[in-house]
């Protein structure tokens, strides 16, 4: 396999004076096949940060032979904002605002991870109502995030309609979350100790209405995209990741479960209200893009089931434990993780006793998915590359932090 360091990172065809016009540009390497003295070359193409389908600012440098990819290299960092460094100057109740902006389509999961880490450091017990509320909003966020994945996955294969139908359903969820937390995307709702405010009156009626309608909409979404034979031909058998490769690369979440390894943080390391909730965890078999699609569609259905259970079984009580206004956890370190929509989102906090963390590490599941791309892309076509990026559900905000 080509050493990625040998790939030139800028194709330079359009740069003035980048190369002598008499010789081929630096990015093209000669791979002679020698029929009657004809030589063929591999093209080095830049699927650059600006691209309609790289789910953010992902840069992929691929070496192609015609349309077939021979080697691929991911170049990350275009959305790096220094979240981990900024966290060293933020107090513990402000960390949620940073996590919201990591994986920004499933903000509640990031906030949940940060809150769990601080609660474990403080050894504070979260009241039942707060735990059930957190699970409720987390599962709603999971549905919202998977709807974006579903919409953009279809767009990557060329279908347009299902994207807007998914957005219609996502609008209902965002309206509910706006009524609960005050914002549609940067929620800042889950804090160490519980949540910021109680659920507003009348929200359970709205949520139940959404849940009752969503199953039928989900069937429609699956019939539109998954039932489409063209889509099935594009997606089935493509991009297989076996369980060993997935584990070696550190994949988690739906990507790992589709490869046959049934690891779900909500089952293995339960937190919040998940021990009391009744849900199934879908696990795939072959790890191709079709299995990842089916696993996520089923996860949406299970999340809907959990939302209904949370609304029906919401206990009474306080919505937050008593935590001091300025949190100064004892010295120590802790790692806490949640099952976010993209995998295992983890937070590793090292506290030195002051009101800001000494070191804050944010484990983002999409980083590992980006890296497994370099492994699975060779042998596929360029059209498959776009589709596989979509099937792994990569979110550049959390990858680059």
């Amino acid at each position: 396999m080509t050493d990625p360091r040998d790939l030139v990172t800028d194709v330079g065809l359009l740069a003035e004076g980048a190369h002598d016009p008499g010789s081929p540009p630096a990015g093209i390497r000669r791979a002679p096949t020698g029929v009657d003295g004809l030589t063929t070359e591999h093209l080095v193409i830049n699927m650059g940060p600006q691209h309609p389908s790289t789910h953010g600012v992902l840069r992929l440098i691929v070496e192609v032979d015609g349309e077939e990819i021979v080697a691929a290299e991911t170049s990350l960092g275009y959305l790096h904002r220094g979240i981990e460094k900024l966290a060293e100057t933020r107090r513990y109740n402000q960390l949620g605002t940073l996590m919201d902006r990591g994986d920004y389509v499933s903000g509640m999961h990031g906030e949940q991870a940060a809150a769990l880490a601080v609660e474990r450091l403080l050894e504070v017990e979260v009241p039942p109502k707060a735990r059930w509320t957190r699970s409720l909003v987390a599962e709603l966020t999971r549905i919202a995030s998977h709807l974006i994945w579903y919409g953009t996955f279809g767009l990557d294969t060329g279908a347009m309609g299902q994207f807007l139908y998914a957005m219609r359903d996502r609008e209902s969820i965002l309206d509910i979350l706006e009524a609960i937390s005050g914002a549609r995307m940067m929620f800042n709702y889950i804090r160490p100790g519980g949540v910021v405010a109680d659920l507003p009156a009348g929200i359970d009626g709205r949520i139940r209405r959404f849940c009752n309608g969503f199953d039928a909409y989900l069937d429609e979404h699956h019939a539109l995209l998954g039932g489409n034979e063209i889509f099935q031909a594009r997606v089935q058998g493509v991009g297989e990741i076996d369980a060993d490769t997935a584990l070696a690369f550190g994949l988690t979440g739906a990507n790992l479960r589709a490869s046959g390894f049934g690891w779900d943080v909500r089952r293995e390391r339960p937190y919040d209200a998940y021990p009391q909730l009744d849900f199934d965890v879908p696990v795939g078999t072959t790890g191709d893009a079709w299995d990842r699609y089916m696993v996520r569609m089923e996860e949406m259905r299970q999340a809907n089931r959990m939302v209904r259970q949370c609304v029906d079984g919401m206990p009474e009580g306080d919505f937050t434990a008593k935590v001091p206004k300025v949190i100064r956890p004892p010295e120590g370190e802790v790692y806490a993780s949640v099952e976010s929509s993209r995998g295992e989102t983890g937070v590793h906090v090292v506290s030195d006793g002051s009101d800001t963390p000494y070191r804050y590490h944010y484990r983002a599941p999409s980083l590992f998915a980006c890296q497994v791309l370099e492994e699975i892309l060779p042998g596929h076509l360029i059209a498959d590359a776009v589709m596989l990026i979509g099937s792994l559900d990569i979110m550049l905000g959390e990858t680059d932090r």
Partner: protein
Amino acid sequence: MWGTGLIKGLAITMRNLARGPITVKYPYEKLELPERARWAVAPKFDASGNPKCTACMACVRACPDYILDLEVHTAQDKSKHVEHFRYEVGACMMCGLCVEACPFDAIEMSHDYELAVTDPEALAYDLLTDVDAASPKRARAEKPAAEKPAAEGGGPDA
């Protein structure tokens, strides 16, 4: 039979065509915001029109990005006069931590979301200019006994 999925897909899109668009024609029609919606920070005033702010600086300390800034002049009798209460709305992320931190219910997250301006100077303005800060004692006495400012948060409840 191969192809039934394609026909079903066409039927689904046609059904959605018949359902009609869900577009809200902004700015001619606007959606109603929920009570807790967090947008630009605005000062609150008491019944006689005076600002409730006591210049205690709790919001300035609570803000993660140092958006709020109070320029205060303290007189001999410990009463405070607010020269400028500067608010950089262009950099504010509307997280609501300032409103949660205020012990006197003197600021709120308004529902003003049409914040686009053409002049960069307008991206920062004063919430309060050249006013006397309320007295902390009087402000606390006015609050009804049942209301606990520290436990509630997240924006104005009517």
